[in-house]
């Protein structure tokens, strides 16, 4: 098991290197002179030169990349173009909001999608199945930020059950934290649960046709035991592999849904940075966002090993 984890992490190195090259390369793809954007038009040539040296622009690409990577590995992803804020600090400061939404949304998605999928799969072709799959089909077509708005209007504006804007840190008050992210998590989660329900249903139907289910029935096991012991754990195998994709989609969704609830997370940070072409900040978001996704994938692999003994052994 430990070997599996270590080998997975080592296997990530080339991937992360490519991402880092692509991300760093962004800086050089931006048309025009970066210095102009930072200093404005009135700056003197001396100022330009000084800034160029400060940014390392006088060095060859590989040297610049090497320096940047070296600093990045120590946790320094550079400085904002427009104030002296450290990129790492800014992104890490915004991350709790976004991660709260992402993982809260994942929990909601699991809580809705998995039981719905299992139930539909067990009643394949029946009424429950048809209703659940209809809802899943519609759910996959709904933009999650629109669901968020539709939730916001009654619950936060008309009835004011939860705040319409603003994030409370869990360190301050767990209850307020939950209230501040609740609607966003539901919006993200219902949206993601549609795909999850479909996958779970498919996996369940597939597993129920396998020979070992026939064996379990020939053993006289109860339907509960067949469903929840023999089928579910095997159905979890393909479902777990898709959770990585789901978290990826949820993280992306969170960047937008944040805007509906005025939560100042990574979404606000990156939108602002794109508008002002504050490239170091965008780079920081890409790098840290990738790290989040990649870590989730490692966790998913570990969970996969748990349900699938074949992987654990090798």
């Amino acid at each position, binding site marked *: 098991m430990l070997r599996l984890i270590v080998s997975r992490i080592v296997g990530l190195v080339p*991937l992360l290197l*490519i*991402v880092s090259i692509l*991300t760093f390369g*962004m800086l050089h793809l931006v048309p025009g002179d970066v210095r102009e954007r930072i200093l404005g038009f009135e700056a003197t040539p001396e100022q330009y030169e000084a800034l160029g040296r400060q940014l390392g622009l006088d060095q060859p690409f590989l040297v610049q990349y090497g320096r940047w990577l070296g600093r990045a590995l120590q946790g320094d992803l550079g400085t904002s173009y427009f104030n002296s804020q450290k990129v790492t600090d800014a992104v890490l400061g915004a991350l709790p909001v976004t991660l709260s939404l992402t993982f809260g949304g994942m929990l909601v998605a699991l809580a809705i999608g998995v039981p719905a999928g299992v139930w539909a799969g*067990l*009643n*394949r072709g029946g009424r429950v199945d048809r209703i659940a799959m209809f809802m899943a*089909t*519609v759910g*996959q*077509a*709904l*933009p999650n*930020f*629109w669901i968020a*708005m*539709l939730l916001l*209007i009654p619950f936060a*504006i008309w009835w004011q059950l939860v705040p319409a804007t603003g994030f409370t840190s869990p360190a301050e008050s767990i209850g307020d934290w939950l209230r501040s992210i609740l609607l966003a998590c539901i919006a993200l989660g219902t949206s993601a649960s549609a795909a999850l329900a479909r996958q779970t249903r498919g996996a369940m139907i597939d597993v129920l*046709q*396998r*020979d*070992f*289910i*026939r*064996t379990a*029935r*020939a*053993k*006289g*096991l*109860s*339907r509960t035991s067949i469903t929840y*012991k023999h089928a579910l754990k*095997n159905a979890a*195998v393909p479902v777990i592999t898709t959770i990585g994709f789901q978290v*990826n*989609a949820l993280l*992306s969704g969170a*960047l*937008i849904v944040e*805007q*509906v609830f005025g939560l100042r997370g990574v979404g606000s940070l990156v*939108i602002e*940075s*794109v*508008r002002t072409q504050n*490239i170091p900040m*965008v780079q920081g*978001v890409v790098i840290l*966002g*990738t790290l*989040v*996704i*990649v870590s989730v994938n490692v966790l998913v692999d570990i969970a996969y090993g748990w*349900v699938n*003994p*074949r992987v654990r*052994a090798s």
Partner: protein
Amino acid sequence: MSRAATGVAAEDTNAQAPLTGFARTWRAFLQHRLAVIAAGYLLVLACVAIFGQALLVHDPLAVDLARTFEAPSAEHWLGTDHLGRSTLGRLVVATSVAMQAACLGVGIAIVLGAPLGLLSGYFGGWWDRIGMRLVEAIVALPALLVPIAILAILGPSLTNAMIALGIANSTAFFRLMRGAALEVREELYVDAARVSGSGNVRIVFRHVLPNVTGPLIVQTTLAFSYVLLAEAGLSFIGLGVQPPESSWGVMLATAQRYVQQQPFLAVPPGLMIMFTVLAFNLLGDGVRDALSRAGGVVRAASNPGRVPGAGATRASAAAGSVATATVGEQPASGPSVPQALLSVTGLEIRFRGARGGELAVVSDVSFDVPAGRTIGLVGESGCGKSVTAMSILGLLGDSGRIAAGSIRLAGQELVGLPESALNGIRGASIGMIFQEPMTSLNPAYTVGNQIAEVLVRHAGLGRAAAAARAVELLDHVGIPGARQRAACYPHEFSGGMAQRAMIAMAIACEPKLLIADEPTTALDVTIQEQVLDLLSGLQEQNGMSILLITHDLGVVADMCDEAVVMYAGNVVEQGRVDDVLLDPRHPYTAGLLASMPQNLPQNRPQSRPRHHDRSGRLTQIPGRVPPAWAWPAGCRFHPRCPYATEVCRQAVPQMVAADDRRIACVRAGEIDPVAGWRA
């Protein structure tokens, strides 16, 4: 698709004239009502996008500050926004923007991804490796950050957003085309084409593109959904379409800003996105389904010949009620015949077809299994022997039922028993083992756990006691190092060991009857003998009866006291094993014997001649068992029988009993059933 359904599909193709692939797909698509509606909706939407603005009463850009935030009215059907502009008008403009944008985004994705993927897959090598690595890296990034990062470079605007989404989405087309090209490259006919001097371009157009057209269409509809949703999202956060230009996302952003004043503003654009994305998804589903069904029919047509029921028992496992059995028709059988442990009388099993209607896959089957004896149920695959075995346990699945007859175990009628009562019998008084030991064990649990489970269920043992007993059982069936092996998972077992574990599980509760469905067919030749020896040994020790289902007459000769030969859902001959094998009276039995190497019935089959065809198909009887819907009238064997006459085509043979034998052949007695197979 269950085999039952493929069977019916095959019937269809036989009935109709062959269609071209495209026409077949098209027909399958038209049957998909939702997909057709979706396609219609998208056509209408395209018209709105192109001509809609000409029909508008209100200029979508006309500001009227006196009439802001109006609710829907006769004049403004969908109300007005914060500048008093008509929401309907803005929606039409937005639709046009969305459609153009989606076409641009998807177009870029295809133009960028597809050719690169094609080249990468077709030529392979270093470029392919670099391409794949890049694609993997892009896929590993949070999905929305790819377009966002590209927009950071290009600056926010609709065109740039579409370029960004196109690049982000091109990876899907890259992978699709690369896969298709790789596949075709491996195919021999491309090598042949290359040798014959066809250029690469020609090969690509002739061989790669036709294969990939279907998946490409499906992927394109998915890309439309993705781009539409992403465009709305990007415009919503201000990185796509820039106001005062209109788009669904921009309109939602406006609605968000003025949600306090007029919440209705959020409804129309949201619904438009939903319906449009839904339509693309449904269209994609429809095309995918049509393609697979059109393809499925082709495959099914080339592979007919299975009793639908045989597959269906395996396929459907959700609920296993033995549906209401009409016991009235059964021949009068007196109260329990003491010496028969299991007594099957007049059994008829029906399966529901895919399009309604029922088909009897087994009819009028009767046999007894005396205590302590072994009975062989023999026949080629598709003759109904496995279905018969499954019906004893009440495991016919949702689509099958026992329509008539009686199954008595030690005097107790099993037909019509409620599921809970059957569950008390399965695994307790009747154990069962199957053909494929590896897939019959649950890969997610240890072997010991799966054996202990039966003991907990039926013998009332606690977990620890059951686990200890499981080890003893594994030891008992000859698994070395039973204690360690009990903690192993099925994939760590060899086929023979797995079958031993299955046997341990089946005999754990000391059943009176063991049903063994082709227990050695999937095993290595040298292992087969050991497993059969194990079964005989266990029978000697605990006196259980065995119902052995097999196509292998060698196994029957070796293991069984009596043989019941089945063909196409009927018993054709039954009797004591020596009689049946040495002196077959039914042409089918004689044919089966003749197809065993050097074993014509003059000399009784030697102990275990293990040269039979492992696929279960016997080589010398021409043809194979037809599927149940194609069973001929009269004697079902007549198309393959060398003795068939006009009588056989009309008269249904009745079972005739004569000195301990029962034979169902209209020409029994007047023919020498062995001679015909020598010719």
